[in-house]
């Protein structure tokens, strides 16, 4: 009997958070043009400029040409950035400017439903950005294997992970300005240290040890072999770290937003 109740409650929770997801998806579909531009034109500029520009000097890295090496890093970073932007600026706008969440809280929806729906949506946006980048890189011949399609579920996890961290930052923010601290002090160093632009082997060993705590590093470790025709090693570990971040920050965001919105 209790199992049945848990099942029913999970279904109800999923259905409530889906209505939040659908609201965001519907808004996105109306403004998809500009949104797509941000989430995939910019990373592609980086890919082609750095890939061709630096690639000339670098030649091949880890057995593939630099641009192929870089493509997987750019896709991972873009999945992270898309969810981060959504979880910071757009979520803050919904919370403080448009008061969308206040409106939702007058319906049967609660803070948990809103956070889960938002995080699922951030995961979805990362998948959309990954699809776009995968398409362009594949057409340009920078993807070595069909197994690259496996990056899509990984992009979903990436989006949920960084989306929930961003939502936590948003829950603590008093204005948009606060986001610069997170972006400059957390996101940028993480991109530079996670093996996006160069192999980690070039870093000092102490730094390499710390990098194992960065979720983006684990994402890159999975995405790179999938896009360059290899097989990711230690897959469970690389899935585990972003998943733990995701669960931890989802619960943190829920409790912080409860304190902020229901007081």
């Amino acid at each position: 009997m209790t199992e049945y109740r848990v099942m029913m409650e999970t279904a109800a929770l999923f259905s409530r958070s889906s209505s939040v997801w659908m609201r965001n998806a519907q808004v996105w579909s109306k403004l998809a043009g500009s949104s797509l531009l941000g989430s995939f034109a910019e990373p592609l500029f980086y890919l082609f400029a750095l890939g061709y520009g630096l690639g000339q000097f670098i030649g091949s890295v880890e057995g593939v040409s630099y641009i192929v090496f870089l493509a997987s890093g750019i896709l991972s970073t873009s999945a992270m950035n898309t969810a981060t932007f959504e979880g910071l600026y757009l979520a803050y706008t919904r919370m403080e400017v448009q008061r969308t969440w206040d409106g939702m809280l007058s319906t049967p929806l609660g803070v948990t439903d809103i956070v889960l729906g938002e995080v699922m949506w951030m995961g979805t946006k990362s998948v959309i950005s990954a699809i776009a980048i995968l398409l362009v890189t594949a057409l340009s011949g920078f993807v070595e294997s069909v197994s690259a399609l496996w990056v899509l579920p990984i992009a979903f996890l990436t989006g949920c992970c960084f989306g929930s961290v961003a939502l936590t930052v948003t829950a603590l923010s008093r204005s948009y300005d606060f986001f610069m601290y997170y972006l400059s002090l957390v996101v940028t160093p993480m991109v530079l240290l996670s093996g996006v632009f160069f192999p980690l082997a070039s870093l000092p060993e102490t730094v390499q040890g710390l990098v194992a705590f960065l979720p983006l590093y684990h994402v890159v470790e999975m995405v790179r072999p999938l896009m360059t025709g290899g097989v990711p090693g230690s897959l469970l570990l690389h899935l585990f770290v972003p998943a733990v971040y995701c669960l931890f920050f989802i619960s943190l965001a829920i409790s912080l937003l409860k304190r902020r919105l229901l007081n």
Partner: protein
Amino acid sequence: MHAFVKTPQIVHLMNPPVIVNANRLTKSYNGKTVVKGIDFSIKKGECCGILGPNGAGKTTTLRMLVGHTSPDEGRLEALGLPIPEKAREMRSKVGVVPQVDNLDPDFTVSENLYSYGRYFGYNRKALEPRIQKLLDFASLQDKADSRVQALSGGMKRRLTLARSLINEPELLILDEPTTGLDPQARQLIWQQLRQLQKEGLTIIITTHYMEEAERLCDRIIVMDHGTILADDRPETLIKKHIEPHVLEVHGDDVDKWHDALQFGAAIRFEQVGETRFYYGSELKSLIDSLDGWSGLRYLYRPANLEDVFLKLTGRDLKDD
């Protein structure tokens, strides 16, 4: 015919059911008690106005009512459900019109109604006929496909009101629904609220406009400093607290005129800013004495809710 009210039109002549019941409700923030053990109950079909200056505890009371904040002490029941424990179930049967518009600016009018209806778990098929009716009700038929950003303030408020009815609520809660609207827009909202009231909907409304409260509400709760100062029908409140007639006088010579006056204890006198108020059942001698004072502006009128409000909550400026 607009039948948004799901509950059958049974007339409970003798004993209408209690929709909201609050017992010794108390709430503090950071050591400051904003609601101090208030008791009230609202019966089905009532339109109850909660009046009070800023900081009186009105908004906190409403937030407790919809389960957005938990009372520190006391018991609260709405639609027969304990709050906040069963707040989700209760909110599925309640409509809320917030003080600040939170419509989705990226959506059209009907998209706003759809997405809000989805939060209640309704699908498109169930919502379609409701939305048509609500657009008619809000006189927004021609605007169904307009972006919300393109609507006037009055239209946005009407849409917010229509949106709050999407779940066919048994209780409607409005937090200052006409603040910032022009007089025409306000009249239209009042008309719609009266219509809902006629259909038997129970309404709780906070407002700063005494005229609004007097016109719409058959029950007024006056709050200040977290307590309930009065709770009665508007006409009873006026009778109980204020003399029947009021003379307001202001103008350049008002001090001179006042000093020359002679009136007995039967006339009560108050001063607010530069206006002088005289309350009593016989003000004829005062009115006669206005003759010849061309610099005076005056108004002779029956006592109203504003007089009650000012008497009960004091005449100081409330800025907190």
